[in-house]
């Protein structure tokens, strides 16, 4: 049984701090080249296939921008 996860980032709330990225054990997240209306390069799920839904990124996000989903497959 494996765990498959996915995250949804609130792009407008994200400040592009990068703390989620370095806390993701599967290198799922990257900062976008585009910016949000505040000028921040927001985080996004760059490699959706690798996310396990571990919630590490959401736990460390200072602005609580990340929602995590997980299924058993």
């Amino acid at each position, binding site marked *: 049984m494996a765990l498959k996860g996915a995250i949804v980032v609130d792009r407008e709330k994200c400040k592009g701090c990068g703390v989620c990225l370095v806390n993701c054990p599967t290198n799922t997240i990257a900062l976008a080249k585009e910016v949000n209306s505040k000028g921040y390069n927001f985080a996004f799920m760059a490699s959706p296939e690798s996310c396990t839904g571990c919630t590490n990124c959401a736990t460390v996000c*200072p*602005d609580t921008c990340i*929602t995590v989903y*997980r*299924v058993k497959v």
Partner: protein
Amino acid sequence: MDVNDIIKPENMVYSKTPVLTSTTMHYCPGCSHGTVHKLIAEVIDEMGIQEKTIGVSPVGCAVFAYNYVDIDWQQAAHGRAPAVATATKRLHPEKYVFTYQGDGDLASIGTAEIMHACNRGENIVVIFINNAIYGMTGGQMAPTTLLGMKTATTPYGRTKELHGSPLRITELLAQLEGTCYVTRQSVHNAASARKTKRAIRKAFENSALGKGTSFVEVVSTCNSGWKLSPVKANEWMVENMFPKYPVGDIKDL
């Protein structure tokens, strides 16, 4: 498996607690204050005490904490949060009362208030954000600033001769008979944030049991004041702050 098959309400395993308002925080990107606010809100949510909790916000970057955690709040003059919390708790013994204070607030101008509240063993929780600097006012030296650390008021670095040594106030407070739980934690990675959350929960539970003052220091970053990126600030903290401010429980009665 397609992400759209995963992103469904029944598969949600983490989302923002409703105790945290949806107001965007004014903190700099990556600031530890936001992470700690979130953990406090999650504990309040999980304990079901939103209607029974009163926070006292400090003077410092966290002065506006009341905009982010949806509970009752008071805002104290600089350093005086433990005195305000003392009165609040004594008048409302059935409530959970906590202060949220920075190192400038708690360990400098508010030294008398925190010492005596802890010595009296007030049944309050103290959350102490030690980022080794006065963040709000532009990065001046705090009592907790490390030796050699450059700040706006120590442009050549803090020296023992001129400024004294970094103040480990948490160890001092642990020696007072009124404190029942004194711990030092951090929020730089997921494991440490989860530990900090457990410490905050224990602190709130202690105050309901009338055990005395529970004190949770969170070794934190002020990346703007430190002039580092958020990720580099966390690394710098682990390397430089942890040797002086080691994480772990100092007292647990």
